[in-house]
């Protein structure tokens, strides 16, 4: 009986905690559904008196938000593909090919994980300025392609694949490349998914670099676009919140699809974006 009571109290507390934690998100959506004059007033209302999608129309119509989303999607997609194409072969080399200097090379690459990105912003800017690619999506993508953590994850996984599988392929006359593409890569699908998900999260959330590398608002990524919303739209809070909701949808969908993978990936690597 006493246990019953305790259980009920615990459940109520837990529901309360969940409600508090989720509330800011709910408030973002609620605000976005109000008219501006209901938001900027001292006579506070909780729920929208006349729910409206006007702010969404406004956000789509009077800002580049769709273009920003598209830019972020392009950057993320290229980063995901590029990261895998670059990381997988070298991870395989580190795991399975015995070549001189392998260990030194591995540690040089891993040391790259310790470099905080802001050390690179000035030299990268000058470098890209001299290539004439500042203010392009290419500039936003290039420095994010080399992702050492991806190599770490993939190498770990490839090392676990028994040598016998490769040997069999070699005896059948397959070369390195064919063995890698047809045997190793399919077996490493789980690790590859983790790497690609991490690449997406990093690319999508990147802020400091696109802020520097891109100057025209048409070329902004969604993170930079939203950050500058307040500067350009001042007190149009309902519209700003509508923009925030729009900006979050792709990530939310991504999260709902890959929830388990994302959480496990973080638990495995301890990578903070």
């Amino acid at each position, binding site marked *: 009986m006493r246990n019953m009571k305790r259980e009920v109290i615990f459940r109520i507390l*837990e*529901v309360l905690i*969940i409600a508090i934690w989720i509330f*800011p998100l709910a408030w973002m959506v609620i*605000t976005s559904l109000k008219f501006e004059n209901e*938001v900027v007033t*001292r006579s*506070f209302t909780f729920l929208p008196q006349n729910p409206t999608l006007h702010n969404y129309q406004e956000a789509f119509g009077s800002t580049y938000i769709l273009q920003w989303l598209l830019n972020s999607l392009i950057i993320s997609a290229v980063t995901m593909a590029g990261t895998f194409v*670059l*990381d997988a*072969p*070298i991870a395989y*080399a580190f795991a*399975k*090919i*015995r*070549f*001189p200097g392998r260990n030194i090379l591995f540690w040089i690459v891993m040391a790259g994980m*310790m*470099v*905080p*990105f*802001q*050390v*690179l*912003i*000035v*030299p*990268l*800017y*000058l*470098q890209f300025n001299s290539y004439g690619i500042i203010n392009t999506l290419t500039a936003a993508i*290039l*420095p994010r392609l*080399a992702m050492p953590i991806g*190599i770490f994850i993939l190498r770990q996984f490839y090392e676990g694949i028994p040598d016998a599988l490769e040997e069999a392929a*070699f005896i059948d006359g397959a*070369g*390195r490349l064919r063995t*890698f593409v047809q045997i190793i890569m399919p077996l490493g699908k789980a690790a590859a998914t983790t790497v690609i998900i991490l690449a997406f999260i990093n690319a*999508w*959330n990147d802020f*400091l670099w696109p*802020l*520097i590398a891109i100057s025209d608002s048409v070329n902004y990524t969604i*993170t*930079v676009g*939203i*950050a500058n919303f*307040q500067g350009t739209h001042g007190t149009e809070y309902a519209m700003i*919140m509508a923009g925030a909701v729009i*900006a979050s949808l792709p*990530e*939310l969908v991504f999260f709902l699809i890959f929830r388990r993978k*994302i*959480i496990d990936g*973080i*638990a495995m690597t*301890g990578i*903070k974006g």
Partner: protein
Amino acid sequence: MAIPGNKDIRDGILFSLPFMIVFALFMIYPLIFGLYISFFKWDILGTPSFLGLQNYADLLADEKFWSSLWHTVQFVLMTTPVLLVLGFLMALLVTSKSPLRGIMETCFFVPYIFSMTVVATLWAWIMQKDFGIINQVLNILGRDGVSWLTSEKNAMWSISVATYWWTAGFNMVLFTAGIKQISKEIYESATVDGAGMLQQVIHITIPLLKPTTILCLILQIIASFNVFGQVYVMTGGGPAGSTRVLVQYIYETGFNYFRMGYSAAMSYVLFVIIMAVSVLQYVFLGRRED
């Protein structure tokens, strides 16, 4: 593994090459180039002139540099302990037997999925002085609204609160993974011995989670040292520069005032600080693997 006509050297080079080219171009080269720049007076126009260590010497005398460093340290101190405790408490809830544990895990983690600029924009609105919901509720309760983001006393705490909400779920994931590795038998025998829930947490969970705690601690300190976006969006470094952090000062020096050499020198100082923390991480992680 060797293949007929051993081509390991050739293959090793060929498979490593694509990554190494990109790595050399966009990581190693800028890293060295940045250090080089830091010895120059380097504006975006005009010829760079060699200064030797003058930029570093100027840093030591730059009041703005020290205040930015101090604000960064403040932010680290304000966020790290709270984020560890929150993450740990969340992990306890998520690994409990509660039927709500799955929902709780998703709810606690979901803010982390949102990009930081969205999170910062949202909290800037929640904490807005005149019409934000916190002050509106305070008004209804007959209290005066608080200047969450516009007073020197509160601004950094307000940024910290937004950060708690944003990343506590990340630490929860690491703590949850740690707790799941602790064998159930330890808890069972503790229960047989009559240890209550709280005692089990204090005497079993916390001590056995030490490696996870150290990992979280170091990751969190590094992440907090790199703080920029929240400040940029929520206060822009204000009021009166009271929340200007180091990355922001690096950014402003380099890209608002175009003092590239000075900016690069500053970023190297931050690098050394973060490096020291990272070295600690490797020392501790190495120990954990033994």
